[in-house]
């Protein structure tokens, strides 16, 4: 079989990008594979193409519901009808309907928590599966808002079935992740296909400021004098709403995007952004990982992420069309404390764990006990997961070491910010890569020549021309 011909025929691309063909060949040979390819380089193709060439369905485990839905929509848009998403946001009846017809679908996206349900697993066992994909596989070793004990439970699911090959995909794999992935996914002597994670067309810049007022001023000036489309990452939903309001008030076309918005508004904002009707989005990390919009020119971090992995994921939204793009991170001294505070509140303390455990022993319902012990939702999920496996003392030890780990990650992120050496090299060394490439527009610590393409003449005004209502209907429908 000629793979390039298949690529051309089914996707219309003339050649594979680095690494793709190798990954696909391994998968077709039935081998467990770990593919580490940079953001935006086409990891999805690595399971889509083999999916067509194999008998049976492809099961794709995907960490975020929004991401899952986006990918289903993209595939449908490209003409693939046999694709479906199965997650806990579906209503009970919708889910039942999907589950009963599972064998109609070639590509089934599923959230990790669905796979920890017995009934769902039973259905999957009856299904002929060609391939199991774990997308954004680095989530396995992550702790934080998106930590999913369910991800860890995946191993249980993968252990019990007489299974097809597993393909793990990620763009952010440091040593620990590379150890965790095969371990937790129970992979059988996996092949690792690894490409340089460098994104050459993204230029990195760190700007130190003294106060949040200065940050605000910088952003206002930046978005009204430079080109979009762009994403501004903030530390919370509330903050992204505030920032969007501020920017709207100076005439910038901008909307906030986060999981707290109603579904219709979220699709509208995405669609405006795709269509170039909207220049800027102020977002939480809900608008990150895996989201594919070709022409994003700028990513601005109003606030530092807590890990280098998160940072490079978010930065990875930029320049997916291959054209020059800029990532700017704004930093002021007190950011470190705030970030560290956010991280630590998520991790349950020793007293909390003991108290929670005692309440459970007294026969209290878990939800209520968690509330009394002051556990966050994430915190409860994690403790519940551990309690199935370990004694309380061990759990406390594990949580301590998690807190430490988290802190180390934060320090690594910080060193990236304060370094006077090349930022790009720093990021790459985090992923265990060495690079001596000289890139003309590299980072704010190397030389940063004037980037003319970045500047725009006049501030972008709201692009919605005001039409009367019947003009609008005529425009839409003729």
């Amino acid at each position, binding site marked *: 079989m000629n793979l390039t011909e298949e690529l051309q025929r089914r996707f219309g691309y003339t050649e594979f990008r680095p690494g793709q063909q190798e990954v696909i060949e391994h998968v077709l040979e039935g081998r467990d594979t770990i593919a580490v390819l940079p953001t935006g380089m086409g990891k999805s193709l690595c399971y889509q193409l083999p999916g067509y060439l194999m008998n049976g369905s492809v099961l794709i485990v995907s960490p975020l519901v929004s991401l899952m*839905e986006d990918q289903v*929509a*993209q595939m*449908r*848009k*490209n*003409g693939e009808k046999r694709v479906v998403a199965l997650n806990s946001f579906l209503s009970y009846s*919708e889910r039942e309907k999907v589950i009963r017809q599972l064998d109609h679908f070639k590509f089934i996206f599923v959230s990790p928590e669905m796979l920890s349900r017995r009934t769902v697993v039973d259905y999957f066992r009856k299904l002929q599966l060609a391939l199991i994909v774990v997308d954004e596989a680095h989530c396995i070793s992550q702790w934080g808002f998106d930590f999913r004990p369910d991800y860890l439970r995946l191993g249980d699911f993968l252990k019990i079935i007489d299974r097809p090959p597993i393909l793990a995909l990620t763009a952010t794999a440091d040593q620990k992740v590379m150890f965790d992935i095969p371990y937790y996914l129970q992979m059988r002597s996996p092949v690792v296909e690894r490409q340089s994670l460098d994104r050459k067309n993204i230029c990195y810049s760190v700007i130190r400021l003294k106060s949040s007022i200065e940050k605000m001023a910088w952003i206002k000036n930046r978005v009204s004098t430079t080109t979009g489309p762009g994403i501004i990452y903030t530390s919370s939903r509330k903050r992204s709403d505030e920032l*969007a309001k501020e920017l*709207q008030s100076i005439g910038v076309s901008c*909307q906030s995007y986060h999981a707290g918005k109603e*579904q*219709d*508004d979220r*699709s*509208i*904002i*995405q*669609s*405006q952004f*795709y*269509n170039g*009707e909207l220049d800027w989005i102020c977002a939480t990390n809900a608008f990150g990982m895996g989201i594919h919009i070709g022409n994003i020119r700028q990513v601005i971090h109003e606030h530092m992420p807590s890990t280098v992995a998160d940072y490079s994921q978010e930065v990875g939204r930029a320049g997916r069309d291959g054209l020059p793009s800029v990532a700017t991170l704004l930093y002021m001294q007190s950011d470190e404390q705030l970030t560290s505070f956010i991280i630590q509140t998520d991790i349950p303390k020793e007293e909390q764990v003991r108290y929670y455990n005692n309440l459970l022993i007294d026969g209290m319902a878990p939800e209520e006990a968690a509330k009394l012990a002051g556990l966050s939702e994430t915190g409860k999920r994690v403790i519940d997961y551990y309690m199935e496996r370990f004694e309380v003392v061990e759990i406390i030890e594990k949580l301590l070491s998690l807190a430490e780990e988290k802190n180390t990650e934060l320090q690594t992120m910080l060193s990236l910010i304060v370094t006077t050496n090349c930022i790009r090299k720093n990021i790459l060394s985090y992923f265990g890569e060495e690079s001596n490439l000289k890139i003309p527009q590299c980072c704010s610590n190397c030389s940063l020549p004037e980037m003319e393409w970045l500047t725009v003449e006049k501030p972008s005004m709201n692009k*919605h021309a*005001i039409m*009367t*209502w*019947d003009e*609008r*209907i*005529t*425009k*839409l*429908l*003729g």
Partner: protein
Amino acid sequence: MNLSSILLFIISKMNGERTINASLHLLRGKKSGQTLQDVEYFAVKPFFGILPKLTDKEFQKAAEKLRISAFIVEEDNLIRLTAEGASEVNKQEDYHFRGWDYRGREVVFFKRLALAVQTVSNLREGTHSFLPIESDRDIQLFVKRLFYRKPITSPHFAKEIGDELKKALIGCGMSDKQKFIFTGRLTGKRDTAKTWDQLARELEEQLDSIRLQFIESLHMLLDEIHSLDEYPILRLISDDIKVQTYLTDSAIRTKKLFEEGHSLGSIAEIRQLKLSTIEDHLIEMAMNESSFPILRFVSIEQMKAVIAKANSLGTKRLKLLKVAFPSLTYFELRLIMAVNEKGVV
């Protein structure tokens, strides 16, 4: 129109007889015996369930605004209007909600319409792949069935839908601002809909006001579509939107047993429910069904006497009526009041 103005209007109807929470339940469309009765007693059907997702916070904010303006006061937890409040209500324009008939389903109608419009808007220009603005599978399947064997790629067909829509928007009597909001939420090939924020900014109004005007405009449009035969496509899109039966599912089951001749006590036993719940169901039936056999419970004379007393007391509070008619049970009094509101007596 905004949330506090509507709240003020509702309070004016329940004046001094209910707590503030009764209004919250009403706006959210809570299907409890108490709320369902209130709807009838106080003639506030139009507002039932117009904001199913209303949060406590938003609601309390609107109530607080009324308190600060001294339009309402609270006594023994019961809310009533002040003189200023009453004169404020008189200044309000008429509302055209039909909450009782649509109960949040109007939004489903709009989602179908939005996806249908986006689909033909793209197809008429030969664009066959686009990201659907509605990700809900049920909505997608509905639109797919709707367009089955229709000339969806023809510009004529798109224009037909557009013309029908224009006619209905004018015909239903919504305001120009409402037409602007309504069409602003539609997406086409080149124009994406606007978010609520964007509409609020363009019209320089608050979010709650925009949302409410939108809901009201949907109710007006749906009424127009159902009352005239001139909107074939919109009629199809609004299929199944209006509630078919006004009874809750549980009341329907009770009704069936009641019609088979079971006593209330035996229905309660069969259904493993409290007697008071079964009584609530009968009140629901009495309110909604003209054929309800009220005379199996009370006599004509009793009904007349109770209604006369209620009118002379100027109250619908059962406690006061109970004092006047110690021989009647609360349930019987409620039945009489329910039937009375329907205008049967």
